[in-house]
């Protein structure tokens, strides 16, 4: 909506007031993901393949996850830090404005510094894509785009779930990091390498595999099943349960105050 762009404008202007801090933080983000990349690089210098995937294939996986995560962190940061919004009373202010609450939370924080991570991801992608053996036909490109979009909304959904839980308690929510940061961290390798159980969990419970592993198989030409290509859409559908939890949380807030 147009209002979101206005929010983005004011936030960008706010962050630009602190130019050095902005640039340094973005550089830091870049370096941190660079370290992660180096981790993979060094592992593959020693081992040639892991569970049948080679270096460039893993890189595509890594880059897609990093792109999705950085996009989600950039645009949905308001939900990711929702604990603060509740505890300092900012949500009351949101409730007193004649606009949809989610839109306002979205507009409350947009972290442009994540561009550092995003840049790293793009660089890795641009290295991995030519290096891989994939023949980039239209359907493969669509798969890749869907993976990124699906992944972004999946992480967004996780952030929204976190925010929803914040309405009930702020204590001990660190465990959500297992799925958000953990998803990004361990998603840099195709989820199949962790074993059957993990793959099943990330297929049916938190559909990370639907945006990473299965479409990747299609991308790499290991399967011709076009169903795998559109599985990422289910990642987007993950927003549904997230939204329900959010509304549930708002209702709870409205009946208990703070």
């Amino acid at each position, binding site marked *: 909506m*147009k*209002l979101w762009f*206005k*929010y983005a404008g*004011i936030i960008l*202007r*706010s*962050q630009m*007031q*602190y130019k050095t801090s902005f640039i340094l933080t973005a550089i830091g983000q870049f370096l941190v993901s660079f370290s992660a990349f180096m981790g993979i690089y060094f592992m593959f210098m020693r081992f040639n393949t892991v569970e049948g995937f080679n270096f460039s294939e893993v890189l595509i996986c890594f880059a897609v996850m990093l792109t999705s995560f950085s996009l989600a962190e950039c645009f949905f940061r308001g939900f990711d830090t929702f604990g603060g919004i509740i505890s*300092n*009373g*900012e949500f*009351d*202010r949101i*409730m*007193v*404005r*004649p*606009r*949809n609450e989610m839109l306002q939370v979205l507009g409350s924080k947009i972290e442009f510094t994540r561009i550092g991570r995003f840049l790293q991801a793009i660089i890795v992608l641009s290295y991995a894509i030519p290096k891989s053996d994939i023949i980039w036909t239209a359907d493969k490109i669509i798969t890749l785009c869907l993976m990124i979009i699906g992944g972004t909304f999946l992480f967004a959904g996780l952030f929204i779930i976190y925010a929803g839980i914040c309405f009930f308690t702020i204590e001990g929510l660190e465990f959500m990091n297992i799925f958000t940061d953990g998803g990004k961290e361990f998603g840099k390798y195709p989820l199949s390498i962790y074993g059957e159980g993990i793959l099943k969990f990330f297929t049916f419970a938190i559909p990370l595999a639907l945006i990473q592993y299965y479409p990747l198989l299609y991308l790499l030409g290991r399967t011709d099943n076009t169903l795998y290509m559109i599985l990422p859409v289910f990642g987007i559908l993950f927003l549904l349960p997230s939204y329900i939890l959010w509304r549930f949380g708002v209702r709870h807030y*409205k*009946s208990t*105050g703070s």
Partner: protein
Amino acid sequence: MVGYIGPNGAGKSCTIKIMSGILNPDSGTCVINGRTPWKDRINHVREIGVVFGQRSQLWWDVPVIDSFELLKDIYKIDEKQYKQSFDELVSLLSLESIIKTPTRQLSLGQRMRCEVAASLLHNPKILFLDEPTIGLDAVSKIAVREFIKYINKDRKTTVILTTHDMQDIEALTKRIILIGKGKILLDGDLNALKKQYTKHKIITVEYSSGMPDIFDGLTVLENTNNRYVAALDTGCVSVSSAIAMLSESFDITDISVTSASVEEMVISMYREHNI
């Protein structure tokens, strides 16, 4: 213009939250502008303004005017009306010099004036003020109070105020509602309540010579340097009798009679209702 007073925990904040639509009560009705606040949140809050004393609604690092512009978009205020509101508020609250300053660089008093302006940009019919003058210096307090009086009178904006600052109450409200333990204990005119709850006045006499006798109903508070201050129990002795008695004891050069402060009134109200 209504003032809500009551001890902490009595339910003042909850009342404001219910009226602004933030909180859903378990039972009871509330109708504002023909709506139930929590059932039609977006339409309801479009017509109200809220100032939370301790928390700012302005964006911190950008000039105040940028915050105002964004509020214009949030409230979907049309261009002409915005300009009108904006010009009026800026001149009434003397914001010309600070409107382009980032919020973080403003003093508390300046920020509060901007906050009040921000809450009125969309011309709300009702303004809720939750501790608006807390922490302000004297000059800013007066400026804010004058402004609130003005919009109440001139723009016919309903103002609902909760505060612990008794001078706010004294300066602004005619009607006050006392809340205690979640119930309305009193709802009445300020002056009438003052008369009801404070039965004493303070008499200050400056004299050139003389010695006071002991009078019933007059409790001496201070008598030094030819200045005599006493509390007069008006239930016991009328003001005119007291003045007559005192002029017999003293050669009075100056005399003043003041009613008890709102603070004292509130304290006795609390005491009577056991809160």
